[in-house]
């Protein structure tokens, strides 16, 4: 843990598409920043949040307003905000803007963070491949794009790597916020024989809930640790350590770098990690853990490349 010396207060503004309690993408970022605040104290870190700005127009004005109010770091937590940032950033050269998932840093004061979801997904896939008895694994997807694709590809590769016989079935709801539909897809998966499920986006909460109503179904989460909803079902979660990202950005700024970096969240840099559900972790036999740890080291060492093709 390399701590920073924060001399004067850092003001951080956050724009999120959904809400700070969506138990997914938005919440994990919010908690990340909070963690940083706890670590360094309220006098050092100030936080402001705007929720529900899923449409980039309103986000645009929020971002500009924060920037003009003199926030040091303005985080637009979604891929759809890229173009808005591109046009606002030049007007506020001292402010650091960050968005993700993304790669493009068209201006020297934009950070793009980019969770390598496929890596964690790969490990979760391995668990699935090892744990499934029916050799059917189901994925509840939102829309076939962005992180969801990355996640699904990684997950499927993981499953196959340990259990080539296993079938990975993917179904999408066509949206991000339809909890009922997600739940119904989970149900359909299970009725169709799947015994290990996974999925992305805030709506997967609905799916987890349904899964938890069946005996012996396991769920593997993305984005953040979700075992609180279904302690008997959620085996493990891939979690994004945005607190690390924030610290990184702060330290960059201290070096006088206000942006222009493409920050990846990987297992290697520890910005991406697998959190196990203490109540369930015992279902993973030592052999299984061995396989997992090997895979993890291989990914970190770059021996295994989880290709997105």
């Amino acid at each position: 843990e390399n701590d920073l010396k924060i001399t004067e207060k850092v003001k951080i503004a956050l724009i999120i598409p959904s809400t700070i309690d969506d138990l997914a993408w938005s919440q994990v970022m919010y908690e990340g920043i909070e963690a940083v605040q706890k670590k360094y104290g309220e006098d050092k870190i100030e936080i402001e949040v705007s929720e529900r700005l899923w449409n980039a127009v309103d986000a645009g004005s929020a971002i500009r307003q924060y920037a003009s109010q003199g926030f040091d770091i303005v985080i637009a937590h979604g891929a759809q905000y890229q173009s808005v940032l591109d046009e606002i950033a030049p007007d506020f050269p001292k402010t650091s803007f960050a968005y993700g998932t993304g790669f493009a840093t068209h201006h020297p004061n934009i950070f793009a963070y980019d969770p390598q979801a496929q890596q964690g997904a790969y490990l979760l896939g391995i668990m699935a491949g090892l744990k499934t008895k029916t050799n059917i694994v189901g994925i509840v997807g939102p829309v076939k794009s962005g992180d969801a694709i990355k996640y699904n590809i990684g997950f499927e590769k993981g499953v196959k790597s340990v259990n080539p016989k296993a079938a990975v079935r993917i179904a999408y709801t066509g949206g991000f916020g339809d909890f009922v539909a997600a739940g119904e897809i989970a149900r359909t998966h299970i009725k169709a024989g799947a015994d290990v499920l996974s999925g992305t986006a805030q709506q997967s909460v609905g799916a987890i809930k349904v899964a938890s109503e069946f005996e012996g179904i396991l769920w593997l989460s993305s984005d953040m640790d979700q075992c609180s909803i279904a302690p008997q079902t959620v085996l493990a979660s891939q979690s994004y350590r945005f607190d690390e990202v924030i610290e990184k950005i702060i330290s960059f700024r201290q070096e006088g770098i206000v942006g222009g970096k493409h920050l990846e969240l990987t297992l290697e840099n520890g910005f991406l990690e697998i959190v196990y559900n203490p109540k369930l972790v015992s279902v993973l036999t030592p052999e299984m853990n061995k396989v997992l740890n090997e895979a993890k080291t291989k990914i970190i060492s770059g021996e295994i490349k989880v290709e997105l093709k």
Partner: protein
Amino acid sequence: MILDFIIGIISAGIPLAAPLLLAGLGEMFNQRAGVFNLGVEGIMLMGAFVGFLVVLTVGSPILGLLAAIAVGALMGLLMAVVTVKFKAQQGISGIGLFMLGWGLSGTLFRVYIGGITSITGIKPFSFPLLGKIPIIGEIFFQNNILVYIAFLLVPISWYVLNKTAWGLKVRAVGTNPQAADTLGIKVERIRFQCIILGSMMAGLAGAYLSIAQTHIFADNITAGRGFIAVALVYFGRWKPAGIMWGTLLFSLAHALQRSIQVYGINFPYEIAVIIPYLLVIVVLALSYKSQLLGPVALGKPFIRGSRE
């Protein structure tokens, strides 16, 4: 295999028709009395939240449902005051009600619950013997109680509308309020009653989603089902049975498209997910046009002694 596929679709489709049916029948009463309530979505959200909150705190699903119905009634009362007393334009009022319901439920959720938690709520139960019957049992006798209530309400609504004095008044008020008025029928009172009744059913429909279906509450959990319910009233041409067929068609189509995806029948999922919406339109377009020319006064506020 293929049999499971079909059973799976039907047994998944029927329960999902229930909330649409509850809300749809409710909206039917509004509209038969001449009021177009586009706010169903907002009412459902309030019902879903309040119901959930009560179950979470008190633990009793029954109380939860009652609370949802009560809050539905309140929202209905508001809608009635705005559209009947103040004679406000109905479409816009509905949108206002929708925004209010959505915002209110979201806010109260944040303030009083503040994060996604889950409840046991209402579970499906299997009828003693019937539930055991191979296929039939799984399809018809293993649902939660609200499903049966929803479908029971179809004949009941039909009876109320067509065989009772009140139903007759409703039909008159929705077609020629002036005439009803000259016969001493309290047009505005009937409309109040219908809007409130409809809203109660919408509240119940919302509670179904949180208490009986997902066992959680999350912001915007209805995800547009309120609007679908309104649309299906037109599919059913203001007849309970018609509305029932509409909701079944819609939710079975959904179950079908999910199964298509799950069973990996290869097929771009975008197409799959629009099947239900397409199907509803197409079926309506092809179906025969009924004689009943709907509630003619739909959307028009009643002003005593005015000709237009």
